[in-house]
């Protein structure tokens, strides 16, 4: 149960890092990466994964 970011589509705006309730998203090697250990897909925390909700590019924060 974790999300991932499709690097080729990411605009590196950082909104997902800001919104992630688990601190699972970090900036590494010029892109944002979701730590699958920390990611809960926001279960119990929000109606939908916050990274996918705020991401400006469709289908970029997706189930891993």
């Amino acid at each position, binding site marked *: 149960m974790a999300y991932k970011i499709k690097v080729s589509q990411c*605009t*590196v*705006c*950082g*909104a997902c890092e*800001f*919104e992630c309730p688990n601190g699972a998203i970090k900036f590494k090697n010029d892109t944002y990466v979701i730590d699958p250990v920390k990611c809960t897909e926001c279960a119990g925390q*929000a*109606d*939908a994964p*916050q990274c996918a*909700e*705020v991401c*400006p*590019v469709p289908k970029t924060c997706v189930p891993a």
Partner: protein
Amino acid sequence: MANIISLGGLQVASREDLGKALAGGGCASSSCGSAEGPADMAPETWAKVKDHPCYSEEAHHYFARMHVAVAPACNIQCNYCNRKYDCANESRPGVVSERLTPEQAARKVIAVAAEVPQLSVLGIAGPGDAAYDWRKTKATFDLVSRRLPDIKLCLSSNGLALPDHVDEIVAMNVDHVTLTINTLDPEVGARIYPWVFHRGRRHTGVEGATILLARQMQSLDMLVARGVLVKVNSVMIPGINDAGLIELNRVVKAKGAFLHNIMPLISDPAHGTQFGLTGQRGPSAAELRAVQEACSGGANLMKHCRQCRADAVGLLGEDRGQEFTLDKLPEVVSDDPEKRAAYRDWVAREREDRRAATAAAQVAAEVVEAPPLLVAVCTKGGGRINQHFGHATEFQVYEVDRTGVRFVTHRRADNYCVGGHGDDDTLAEVIRTLDGVPVVLCARIGEAPRAKMAAAGIEVIDAYAQDYLEPAISALFRLRNAPSDTGALSA
């Protein structure tokens, strides 16, 4: 670069010859009747705007702004925006060449301040939303205000997240905030904003637009109540929000917005925006002007906006951002506040001169009865006709009649993408750009382009080189319309 402004270049003009004997009183500049002169606003308001190029049409002749792109995250999606695309030769909002951390941004601001004494304003305009990406905006303002206390801070936002930070904004002495509000109708908003992200949820359609509108109105009210000057930006999108802009203008004025800036949609499939891809067109110059004129009497309209990039540097209409990319900055940056102070002193004297000269010219113009005339001028700042015709990539258009000289708009001949054309193409583009404007005033022009312009019905005159804009336009108007018995010369 053609449009770099040197202090020396500005000072060659004949300020000693002008206006010394002229009586001062009465503002009669192009700024009268709008928000741009000291005569028609409270002294404390004038003090806030007089050095801000985006808030005062007069100030934009003298002062430069810079944007730093520290706030890439955004909480809404607009159909006219695509932040992924970047072209260094392109100028439109939301576009940047390099993103900066707050520390890098502060270093850049200090380096620019040392090189560009005209710098008076640091703005954060994204490329996302400055109020949503607030931590980075605040960190940048903190660093810069500590090192450069004389630089004004401003930011722009869609308003959705701004109420959460309004007290911090006020505490940081941010005097100027721009809110982008495109419509008062959520049904219309749903056609502009596919989604907004608020309180942990993505809201689409009319629901999203309703939330956004409520927060925008709340932001406007909160900022006005705290004494912050608010400029409202609206993107004019023909067939979508154009019909509501006059009512929008009335409402934001009633709520206390200081300035309203209606700008044209920039739309091109190459930009990858939703509107670009679906073929939504931008307004023509005439459509834009018609709406702007219909709004007179509402909130003061800004007509000198250049819709600049989120990392622009320089006077409005020029962009020196490419001179100050990170790799070109020195390791150790040091500031030179005396240079800016000296420049501001010079501007204060120069402004007095220009005002006096303009007032005198205005009085003289009143005796002339003639139809209004549109005049384009080539200027690189300082309120003077001081640019070579061949160097001009934009023209400032004024209208003159017996009631005075008024700034109407600027017209760009490079249309968002520079280069790639031969000289003939450039001249043809200039002629297209100046459609409907019969006269151009410039510092100099070669004989060949002058003849080509004349063949296209546009007279280019360099007799007023280095003069102030308004007195020169006024003098030309008087000369054109002088009674024949005084033996007027043809200009």
